[in-house]
């Protein structure tokens, strides 16, 4: 008996192999799959695995959000008024609707309804454009208010003093002394609208941690009169420079509700994480800038960093999804999909649903919780 040669084709199988070469197998069946069902199932396994990787990646970002929020809860309460909840809600509805049209498109592909498929894909694409358009408007508004991420953020007093003067300071001081904090200070403490507690009570000499009693800090305070634009700018600049020096010796916490004693005015608190205990504030009182500790004030810009990172990364994924939908649309118009083969439509649909799902998480976490 001849030794077996595993590479030789047994007689029966040779016939089958020859037959295989001649019978027409489905055009989309790749050579390494046995049946179209196996190929489709493999594609689904692959796509779901890929979606899992995307979830893990955004998960890291959500983790960063959670850590930041846990460490700076009042920053979130303060910053949320910069986000336009209405626009965010419209975006949510737009994306949900586009997910619906996408699901219907997959169904149309399965049923071989080419015209419906193309229309529904167009509608999905339109939804994507709508989402990005509204996002662009939101980003533009942020740009207009000097709220770009990182070093360009107006809340970065030390790094971006011009931006701070231009965008944030007016809100605190108010035109004519009627800003939010000014009113708050007047109502709560009977302090004249010329002096802002946290802002002015920072010590004038970094080595001297005894505080600026409102009466003592007159030199810097008089310059705060909103009427004198040049003095405001000069003294605001000086104040900014001061705070810059102060931030290097650690955060100091000024309790606007504290008594008048020097010791209570300013106490260096290197472990300070929150400003005013916001639960003790009256219901109607939103968190204002001066309620935050110096540390939290310097962390406001991190809120915007997280906002831009999260929505930006999501936006990039929306753009990629739109590109994929365009590709599928072109192929659908050419009649590539039908009941026998609709895998690409299915997989792009899965991707789009994931993009929608991520937004469903982002929207409440950024816009709604405050």
């Amino acid at each position, binding site marked *: 008996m001849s030794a077996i040669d595993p590479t030789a084709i047994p007689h029966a199988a040779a016939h089958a192999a020859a037959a295989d070469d001649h019978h027409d197998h489905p055009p989309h069946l790749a050579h390494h799959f046995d049946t179209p069902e196996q190929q489709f199932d*493999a594609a689904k396994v692959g796509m779901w695995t890929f979606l899992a990787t995307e979830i893990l990646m955004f998960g890291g970002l959500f983790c960063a959000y959670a850590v930041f929020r846990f460490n700076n809860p009042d920053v979130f309460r303060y910053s949320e008024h910069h986000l336009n909840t209405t626009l965010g809600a419209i975006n949510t509805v737009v994306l949900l609707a586009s997910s619906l049209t996408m699901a219907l498109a997959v169904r149309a592909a399965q049923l071989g309804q080419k015209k419906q498929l193309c229309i529904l894909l167009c509608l999905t694409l339109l939804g994507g454009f709508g989402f990005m358009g509204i996002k662009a408007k939101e980003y533009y508004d942020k740009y207009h208010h000097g709220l770009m991420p990182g070093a360009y953020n107006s809340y970065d007093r030390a790094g971006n003093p011009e931006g701070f003067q231009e965008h944030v300071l007016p809100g605190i001081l108010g035109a004519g002394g009627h800003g939010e904090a000014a009113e708050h200070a007047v109502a709560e403490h009977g302090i004249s609208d010329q002096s802002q507690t946290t802002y002015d009570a920072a010590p004038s000499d970094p080595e001297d941690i005894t505080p600026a009693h409102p009466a003592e800090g007159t030199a810097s305070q008089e310059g705060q009169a909103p009427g004198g634009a040049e003095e405001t700018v000069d003294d605001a600049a000086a104040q900014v420079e001061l705070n810059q020096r102060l931030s290097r010796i650690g955060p100091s916490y000024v309790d606007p509700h504290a008594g008048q004693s020097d010791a209570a005015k300013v106490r260096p608190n290197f472990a300070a994480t929150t400003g005013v205990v916001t639960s003790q504030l009256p219901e109607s009182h939103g968190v204002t800038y001066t309620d935050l500790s110096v540390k939290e004030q310097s962390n406001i810009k991190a809120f915007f960093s997280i906002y831009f990172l999260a929505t930006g990364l999501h936006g990039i994924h929306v753009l990629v999804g739109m590109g994929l939908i365009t590709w599928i649309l072109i192929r659908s118009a050419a009649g590539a999909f039908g009941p026998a083969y609709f895998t690409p439509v299915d997989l792009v649909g899965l991707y789009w649903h994931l993009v929608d799902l991520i937004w469903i998480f982002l929207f409440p976490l950024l816009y709604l919780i405050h």
Partner: protein
Amino acid sequence: MGGILEANRADVHRDNYLTHGKTIRSWAFTVDHKRIAIMYMVGVLSMFGLGGIFALLLRLELITPGPTFNSDPTASNNFYNQMFTIHGAVMVFLFIIPSIPAIIGNFVLPIMLGAKDVAFPRLNLASLYFWAIGALFFVYVLLSGAIALIFDITLPGGFGLDTGWTFYTPYSTSASTTGVIPATLGAFILGFSSILTGLNFIASIHMLRPKGMTWFRMPLMLWALYSTALIQVLATPVLAITLLLLVAERALHIGIFDPIYGGDPILYQHFFWFYSHPAVYIMVLPALGVISEIIGVMCRRHIFGYNFIALSSIAIAFFSFIVWGHHMFASGQSPLMNAIFSLLTFSVAIPSAVKVFNWLATMYRGSIRLVTPMLYVLSTIFVFLIGGLTGLFLGSLSVDIHFHDTYFIVAHFHYVMMGVTLFALLAAMYYWYPKMFGRMYNERLGQIAAIIVFTGFNLTFFVQFVAGAQGMPRRYATYEEQYHIYHIISTVGSWVLGLGLVMVLFNWVTSLKTGKIAPPNPWGANTLEWQTSSPPPHDNFKVTPAAGDPYALRRWQFVKSNDPAVADGWELKPEFRARLEAAGPGHRVDHRDDDDEDGGSQPAVPMPG
């Protein structure tokens, strides 16, 4: 009797995957997993060479307690920082993480499944492209900086990197003046290669198993590759977002990692190690799978405790995700977290030990053939023992406080990463060399090189345990006189190790032309890749073989070669041939008659000449 072997002599000239298409285009645009594996091999081993050169340079710097290359201490230290960063980053990202999955996994996985290719062949090619682009990018950034430093020139984009492969903040975000951003982006690109390869393997193992190959009838290599793929797919995206955040911090000062901008550097460490700890299991699991594959064959014994070994791979993958904090015992975590991570770290040692005990039981009363792959397998088990046990030392919270950031850590991870992964890669390369290239390597040279590599490795790294225990800090270019002797021994050991590895490479390259022609099954193994020719044809099998117990070695009998140019091999015993033919392609064969799990070993066979 010589029919099979003579037929295979013709195989070398018959169309196989190497001869199927000879243009550069056919290689650059191939979707054949075997060709992709060979291209990975060339690239990954080149990166190993690059990382190795910097290791030798490092050790040369360390042979004297003061600066060795450059008399100016600051310049010397700056250069040293770049050297160990290049060594670490190239070895981790470009060599070890891809190594066994990309080279051995890509080549062997589809064939072990009796399939024609992986589930997504074009995605496989994309993985290769991502690796290559990331490698070019990364190596350019790192090397250009080092060269600019050495020769005092300015290269375009000559940034270099001196943060260590771990990119710890806040040094990497604000203080380092080197190319942190381009290097990070290079690592980001490389991550995609890892993710897509893992994705491919998961889909392949789920969907492409033949009839009869249930999950618990798969070769253990596939269990290992599956567990590795799970980690690749779940952990690498976290590295992706970490690197993106690092880039954003450095470029935009967003305030997440750097205290100057309001961030938390320990947060970076948590993010980084959440990926990097599972990553070390990406490095180790395929290596352990290789050992499981080879050891039974070389002892002529069915693997002992198949179910336990298979499930231990999954257990290691699971536990690897919950122990990352043990890299941060000295970073200021709360004592409670430290204690929890320490306890969990002990748990991850258990499945690893399960494997080692099963291997030992496999060897017991076996008839052991000390061919080169087996020498590396034995070396791996030995160094895994040392590396793994020292890992327990480091997992003990109190002990780690003393050992953290000393040479004890350096020695530990070199024992596990280099000792286990590299030795297992060498074992795998020698074991599957005949299958890949249709030639046998030179056995005598292989054995001598194996002994030199083993000796050099232990010389280099064992003394580092002692040095570390006595307080020699890591990443220091200069040190106290008391550590001098350890560094001398270690550096000399590195030369021995380098010599051995060069001999290995020489063996592989020259045997391509001068090696004996390999039969389909030179080792007498029963996994499906040995039932096709060496090298395999373009689509792997002429007829899909029947799946059965992957370790039923009794089916095979040794056949001596009459032709001096052709190596000895194994062929199926006649009684099994008939049963396989009757079962037909891809069908399961009743295993009860040939399962020798509780049997003794087969008789000893002569060593290959």
